[in-house]
């Protein structure tokens, strides 16, 4: 009897502890820091340390410039793996556990995903809109949702057309000004056993940038919920164009940009060009023997839409775990818009395109020896940054959406089409939204 009782008591005790803890463990990210009162600025004389998680190289050197000027607000930069390669996973885990840094580097397209888990501080409540004028309006609109501001734009990637002059000269071609020209040049290059470009079936972000350029707006936030429209004319035009280019063998899908195979192909003349973002310059400089052989031209255009597009881009966001959002915002604005911050980021971290149109960075205002002495940043990318689709908006499940698209694109290798992949992805993304309980509907034709 006594053993039975003890065992029973122990069992009940363990059961109660377990039940209590299970009950206490609600799903992470279901409470919002933005409904709590604003956290006041630090007291004068109080010394604080802010932590910034980012995957930028040597960021501490840039933070040290700030640290020398602000003895009371010291910034500690901590390196994390880039974005979805482990950085976001680390942030999500930290947020779920109730910890985390003050600031984190978050890509423009991932901002809504972090809003969804209540991971970000609404910086409008700390006066972020006072600084809006220092930033590119297209980028500012991409961090602004439902009246709030959820990150400070850090860099972006206006796109251009990088090409090897000798290879284009060989077939008597000029850099294409529109995508029909691009097709003609690609056809000519196939005759000399070279490809104009590659098209990766495992990463949908290039396709997404092209659809944006053509004028697509895949998801639009409205007061009644999300509007989805991925099968619009602009997107379908891009999908059909590349379906045909792949079917005709004008691009190679065997090579992904910036892979070892890509560098090798560029180096031996098997690949002539890359439609890519401004940050691709540093990577292209890694092509063996490429010095003086490359130039940059404006991105080819569609018959609709815009002169260029953005590919990539990140923000400095303030995480809901921050106890000093006001000071974090001040640092983020300094880092990403002041001349010393932008120059420091370019020199130490090789940051993408400056988010401050008034200051593209001193190192980017001179001709480049590698790119045939061309002052390509001022000549090509300054105008490109102004010719953007300002209506484009990111949405809360971008990563999942890009994976869904890439899964569909991979089927191109076994007889599928990009057109079908996009149409199918639209349905799946709609379902994924609905599964999260978010309101979404297909735009009515």
């Amino acid at each position, binding site marked *: 009897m*006594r053993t039975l009782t003890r065992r029973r008591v122990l069992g009940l005790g363990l059961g109660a502890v*377990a039940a209590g803890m299970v009950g206490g463990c609600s799903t992470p990210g279901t409470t919002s820091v933005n409904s709590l009162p604003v956290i006041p600025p630090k007291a004068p004389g109080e010394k604080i340390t802010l932590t910034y998680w980012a995957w930028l190289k040597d960021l501490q050197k840039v933070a040290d410039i700030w640290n020398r000027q602000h003895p009371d607000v010291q910034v500690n930069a901590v390196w994390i793996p880039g974005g979805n390669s482990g950085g976001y996973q680390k942030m999500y885990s930290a947020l779920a556990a109730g910890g985390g840094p003050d600031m984190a580097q978050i890509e423009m397209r991932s901002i809504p995903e972090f809003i969804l888990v209540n991971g970000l501080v609404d910086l409008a409540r700390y006066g972020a809109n006072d600084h809006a004028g220092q930033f590119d309006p297209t980028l500012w609109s991409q961090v602004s949702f439902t009246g709030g501001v959820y990150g400070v734009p850090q860099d972006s990637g206006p796109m251009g057309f990088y090409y090897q002059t000798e290879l284009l000269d060989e077939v008597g071609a000029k850099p294409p000004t529109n995508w029909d020209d691009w097709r003609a040049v690609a056809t000519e290059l196939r005759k000399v056993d070279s490809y104009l470009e590659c098209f990766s079936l495992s990463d949908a972000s290039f396709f997404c940038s092209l659809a944006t350029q053509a004028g697509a707006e895949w998801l639009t936030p409205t007061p009644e919920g999300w509007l989805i429209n991925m099968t619009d004319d602009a997107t379908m035009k891009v999908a059909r164009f590349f379906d045909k280019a792949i079917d005709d063998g004008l691009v190679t899908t065997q090579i992904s940009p910036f892979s070892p195979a890509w560098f090798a192909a560029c180096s031996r003349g098997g690949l002539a060009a890359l439609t890519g973002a401004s940050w691709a310059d540093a990577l292209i400089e890694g092509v063996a023997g490429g010095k003086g052989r490359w130039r940059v031209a404006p991105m080819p255009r569609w018959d609709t839409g815009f002169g260029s597009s953005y590919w990539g881009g990140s923000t400095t966001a303030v995480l809901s775990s921050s106890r000093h959002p006001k000071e974090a915002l001040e640092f983020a604005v300094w880092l990403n818009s002041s001349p010393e911050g932008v120059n420091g980021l370019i020199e130490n971290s090789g940051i993408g395109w400056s988010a401050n149109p008034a200051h593209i960075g001193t190192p980017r205002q001179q001709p480049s020896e590698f790119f045939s002495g061309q002052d390509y940043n001022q000549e090509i990318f300054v105008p490109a940054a102004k010719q953007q689709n300002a209506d484009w908006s990111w949405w809360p499940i971008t990563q999942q959406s890009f994976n869904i698209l890439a899964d569909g694109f991979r089927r191109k290798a076994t007889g599928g089409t990009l057109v079908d992949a996009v149409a199918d992805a639209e349905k799946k993304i709609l379902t994924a939204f609905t599964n999260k309980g978010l309101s979404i509907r297909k735009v009515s034709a």
Partner: protein
Amino acid sequence: MSTTQPHARKLNAATRRAPWILLAPFLVLFALTFVLPILTAVGSSFTRVTRAGLFGEEGVTSGFAGFANYAQALGDGNFIASIGRMLLFGVVQVPVMIVLATILALLLESASAKWPGLFRAAYFMPYGVPGVIATILWSFLYVPGLSPIVDVAGWMGLEVDFLGADTVLWSIANIVTWSYAGYNMLIIVAQLKAIPNELYEAARVDGATPFQIAWRIQIPLITPALVLTTVFSIIGTLQLFAEPQVLSKVAPAIDSQFTPNLSAFTTAFAYNDYNVAAAQAVLIAVVAFVLSFVFLRLTNREDS
């Protein structure tokens, strides 16, 4: 007699208490790090979070979901495909590895083996290399442009692609076999060492060849070790994670849901859907349990 009775009862009580006190450190850790997480995961798999508005700014509610998360996990073609992929992987890789481990163990334990200690250590060594490092090492032999194997095959006019959509699974199987064959070999060696010498002597007196000794004496007697290593390998197969995760950096054919565990990882930490991820995790556990159970049932029947 009457005086010893209370004393005996007291002793009895102390004796009864002792195992619990001695077990307590284990039980506490077991409950906190094993039972509780499992219960939390199961609880989470039956919960659903619903957000109203664009981002849930109009209210977030969580409630009982029934089997909705399971339905969503099972309705995900990529997740089902990942389980199918692992079954195919297991059907090929586990037997290959166990046969290899058994042959190595028998060779090392045979009378004519030279320096068995050295070779045992050498075969076991890969197990000491963490899976991530092993994958990085092997990837240098897989990636075209870096790999000497691909180069040599190229000179001979062979075009090998270790990272293609059809081949990458077997490239992973190769890494796993390399890592764990030695470990399984060691378990089998331990069992072989437990076979009494008299049996060998008797067999030799009866004129058994080394092959007959292996086939009729050693293998039947190491069956428990073979069953154990096979069950561990089946469970390990379903939990495959580090190797494909690391290899995906160089192999575009590995998507974010290549294995069941990668799928759950992506759902939890890239899509932030902890509840569906919990449902996937429970499903993986159920499949591992069913497979192990079926395998044990089949082998037990053979015994009897």
